[in-house]
């Protein structure tokens, strides 16, 4: 699939269509996820920080944890649940009804025509969705900071921006790109290898979502570990 990424023909229309379906289609889900995750996280931490008289650090914690960890992971998991299932089911259904063979018979490479546009769309849209998720989650934290934790707006945002440094932003955008590859590879592989008719497609779809989610969580840990080893000075 990676080799096909750089070869002709390029299916621009299909790629733009997938970007729309993945990006706009997942937007509401991501906004909801960011809003509730951010508020819940801020609520839990504001209580704990208050015990130590450190409520003013809420913005700092929100900034680091959302941008570096929660935003990319939550966004990755949500997109995996929504998009991976769709990709696997679509490709699996096409395979079981011989549509993939028909494509090959007409001289079309299904990897280039189906898998590559979805991969490119994911690589572009998941980081964008992650940024939106981060912003919404931090805004949610600001609401909790103001209404419940009684942290001033100035204090909250200055703490947030204090930790929005290159290293954190880099990790926060590097992870979604990795997650995009995981979602595309697993979902397409499960779709192309689905067998056994409708039941097989259903099973492949379930496996796709489970495997994608677990892999995202594992890879997230190892990226964080790797980053701490390599660029700790920039964090």
């Amino acid at each position: 699939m990676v080799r096909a990424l750089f070869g002709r023909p390029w299916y621009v229309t299909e790629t733009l269509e997938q970007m729309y379906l993945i990006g706009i289609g997942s937007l509401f889900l991501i906004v909801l996820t960011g809003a509730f995750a951010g508020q819940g996280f801020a609520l839990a931490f504001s209580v704990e920080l208050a015990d130590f008289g450190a409520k003013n650090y809420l913005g700092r914690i929100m900034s680091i944890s959302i941008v570096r960890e929660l935003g990319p992971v939550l966004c990755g998991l949500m997109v995996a649940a929504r998009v991976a299932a769709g990709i696997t089911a679509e490709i699996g259904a096409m395979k079981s009804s011989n549509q993939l063979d028909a494509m090959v018979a007409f001289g079309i490479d299904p990897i280039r025509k189906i898998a590559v546009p979805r991969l490119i769309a994911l690589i572009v849209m998941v980081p964008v969705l992650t940024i939106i998720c981060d912003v919404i989650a931090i805004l949610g934290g600001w609401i909790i900071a103001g209404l419940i934790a009684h942290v001033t707006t100035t204090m909250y945002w200055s703490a947030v921006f204090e930790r929005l440094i290159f290293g954190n932003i880099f990790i926060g955008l590097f992870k979604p790109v990795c997650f995009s590859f995981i979602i595309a590879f697993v979902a397409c592989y499960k779709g192309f290898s689905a067998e056994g008719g409708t039941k097989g497609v259903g099973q492949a779809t379930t496996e796709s979502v489970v495997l994608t989610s677990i892999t995202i969580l594992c890879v997230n840990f190892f990226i964080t570990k790797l980053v701490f080893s390599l660029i700790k000075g920039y964090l």
Partner: protein
Amino acid sequence: MIEFRNVDFRYEERPILQNISFRINGSESVVFMGASGSGKSTILRLILGLETPQRGEVLIDGKEITRMKESAKRDIRKNIGMVFQDGALFDSLTVGENVGYYLFEHTNLADDEIESRVRQMLGFVGLDPDDVIDKLPEQLSGGMQRRVAIGRALLSTNPKIMLYDEPTTGLDPQSSENVLRLIVKLQEERSVCSIVVTHQIADSFAIAKRFVVIDKGTVAFDGTLDQLRDSNIPQVTEFLDPFRESMAGVLERKFVAPG
């Protein structure tokens, strides 16, 4: 010309075809018959290069295709049209987009020109272009879907060889007859080599002069209709016996291509 030389094909260690050899010339029409699971459809997939045999050679116009690169196979496929079982139409595309699929993907023709050719082809396969061109495949009957699939195969490559996988299975008698008429029409008007896989005995007699019976992955019989009827080969008689009573009338059945 299509030639199989000692072809063996296994699927997950299960033997599907064993030591299959035959040759089909130019504009011949051949029907492959046999029980479900006997390996008939696999023969079509091997001709199209969708599967690779574990042993033996498949030659299309003298070129051995089993070890060819995918890009080279694409050139071979340009001369072959395939009508898959159940049509295999792209369900997210309209009938017009399905029939014009190859032209949209592989040519720089203007949309108007493609639509004009699509309409012409829909008319050729006996469908009303105005009625069906914007419909989705699921909105058509099984027989109409099969005719759209034939139109798609024809418009794509102007093929010398047409492969039909169970073209009438699951269709009502009228739809079935329409599809068979179309196959005969293609043979007569375009002199294409037709290879039809079916277990519909009655249909097969109407569209070919040569018959191959596949039994458990081997060629049990290869000959004309008269030879088939008089055959004493156990696998052939076992396959044909359930149809003997109705065969007499069926043998007289002839399809005339519509004008």
